[in-house]
């Protein structure tokens, strides 16, 4: 019964947790609790300085970071390139201008540095490159996908934004399993403004991290009430999740439920067999009990109680294993999937529903065989007649 409960909870928990790991990192490393972005068809958030001020002054906001984002291409090994008939060592993606201190305070992005070091305010010519822009971290061949090869910490790369080009020193590589980091390059905001011609201080993303207990919806509504919605799109982190991620999460949840349902059927059959064998081997005693006047409902109830005992002990043991061991263990040692660090999701309401389902299925599975055996003729049961 414990194993069935684990099957019911853990299979779905791992499947959902696989995506949950992804969405958790998306929130903590990129979106914060609220993410403010460009309106559709706008290149940046107009009136950004005033929006940043409004957002920063909201009482619920704990941390704020803003980002400039532009499409860019990066080229490496251009100084050692001899054969100009060969393709240059380039990649294309987004370059992001950040205030390193603000960004790290809000998203702890420095923790995603896998090689080299994080940016400081003095690194006007430094660049951080997302792991998925490098061949050594994303060793796949896909049509149209070009990645930087043979780039090491301290090497120089040439960044081109529109018509402007500048040489940077590679300070570090970032790997977070979030595309918004792994497929981007990061430079100082001051450098970015000069390179991209953003003298107006208009940014592309503002991420807000709220204080403990603050309601995202309340903050979103406050921002909208302040007129931020006229210049930018305000979303909670969940609303900003890519739709495919939610679709996959729902699909995995459904798959988990299907696998769990099979487990539920198996558990029901197991209990049916256990109770049936138990009741059939005790047919004579059941007959005796009926013979001396024990009501058949009381006998059936005794078997249902037995099934309930099996189920509740199994469920309780399962809950202790899930919440006492598996969830904290997997949280401390996430399952390393290529696209996320999977955790085990076992929300209390969801797990309770599964526990109740298992108990109900067990009670039904216990009642049916008890009823079959109890219904047999009393005298036949006492005398052992078939």
């Amino acid at each position, binding site marked *: 019964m414990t194993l069935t409960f684990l099957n019911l909870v853990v299979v779905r928990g791992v499947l959902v947790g696989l995506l949950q790991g992804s969405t958790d990192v998306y929130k903590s490393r990129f979106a914060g609790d609220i993410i403010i972005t460009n309106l559709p068809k706008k290149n940046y958030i107009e009136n950004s300085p005033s929006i940043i001020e409004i957002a920063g002054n909201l009482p619920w906001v704990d941390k704020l970071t803003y980002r400039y984002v532009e499409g860019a291409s990066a080229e490496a090994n251009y100084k050692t390139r001899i054969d100009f008939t060969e393709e240059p060592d380039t990649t294309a993606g987004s370059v992001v201008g950040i205030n390193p201190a603000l960004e790290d305070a809000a998203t702890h992005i420095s923790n995603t540095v896998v090689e080299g070091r994080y940016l400081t305010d003095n690194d006007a010519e430094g660049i951080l490159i997302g792991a998925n822009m490098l061949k050594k971290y994303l060793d796949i061949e896909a049509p149209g996908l070009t990645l930087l090869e043979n780039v090491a910490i301290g090497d120089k790369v040439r960044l081109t934004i529109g018509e402007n080009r500048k040489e940077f020193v590679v300070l570090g590589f970032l790997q977070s399993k979030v595309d918004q980091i792994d497929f981007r390059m990061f430079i100082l905001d001051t450098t970015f403004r000069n390179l991209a011609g953003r003298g107006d201080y208009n940014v592309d993303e503002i991420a807000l991290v709220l204080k403990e207990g603050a309601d995202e919806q309340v903050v979103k509504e406050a921002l909208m009430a302040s007129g931020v919605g006229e210049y930018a799109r305000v979303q909670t982190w969940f609303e900003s999740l890519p739709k495919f991620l939610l679709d996959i999460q729902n699909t995995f949840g459904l798959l988990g439920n299907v696998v769990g349902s099979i487990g539920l059927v198996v558990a029901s059959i197991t209990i049916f067999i256990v109770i049936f064998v138990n009741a059939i081997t005790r047919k004579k005693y059941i007959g005796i009990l009926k*013979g001396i006047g024990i009501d058949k409902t009381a006998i059936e109830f005794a078997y249902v109680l037995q099934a309930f005992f099996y189920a509740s002990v199994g469920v309780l043991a399962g809950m202790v294993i899930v919440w006492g061991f598996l969830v904290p263990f997997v949280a401390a040692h996430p399952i390393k999937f290529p696209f996320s660090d999977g955790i085990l999701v076992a929300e209390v309401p969801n797990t309770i529903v599964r526990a109740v389902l298992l108990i109900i299925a067990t009670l039904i599975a216990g009642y049916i065989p008890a009823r079959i055996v109890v219904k047999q003729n009393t005298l036949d049961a006492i005398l052992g007649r078939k």
Partner: protein
Amino acid sequence: MIIAKDIVKTFKSGEKELSVLKGISFEVKSGEFLSITGRSGSGKSTLMYQLGLLDVPTSGKVIIDGKDVSDLSTDERTWVRLSDLGYIFQDYALIPELTALENVLIPLMMLGLTLKDAEAKAVKALERIGLGERLGNVPSQLSGGEQQRVSIARAIAHEPKIVFADEPTANLDSETSKVVLQNFIELNREGQTILMVTHEPEYAALTDRIITLSDGMIVSDTINKNKR
């Protein structure tokens, strides 16, 4: 106390019909210790099952304390068995996992007694039968005679109108059988009505009245003036 009126019991086996009881009528008076005896296959156990409401006669009536119980529903028959009748089976019919006390407790609790009252009655019944020291023993820790006496305690604990005993000494040696039968005699002296099925003339001789069956019919119904 209990009246059997023209009891017929027929079993069907394929197309054949086998008449085990062929119109049996008699009356058991309150406080009587009656034995039904006869050869194997004479229908004595089948008769006891009809009178004890464990089976339904093909025709005829069973009247207990003036009430016709022949047409009662299954649940009503169960209730009569629980509240008015007591049973002792050949193989003791105790629940192996339960102690002597718990075995006796079951029907009392089913009657709706509180655990405290049921326990008091069960202990009293077991002490009455001389098993006050074996309350906590499970059947496997008791001898055959002791198990049968637990079964007697279970049958009498709720003070039934009549106790049915089906070959109660069949699995016991003669010494133990005598102890069990002595229990019956003492209970009967205290006013308990007992109907016992036995094929042992020696044990039948201990009862007030002996009904002898042969081929599904009463061949003799005698008052035992020489009761030992």
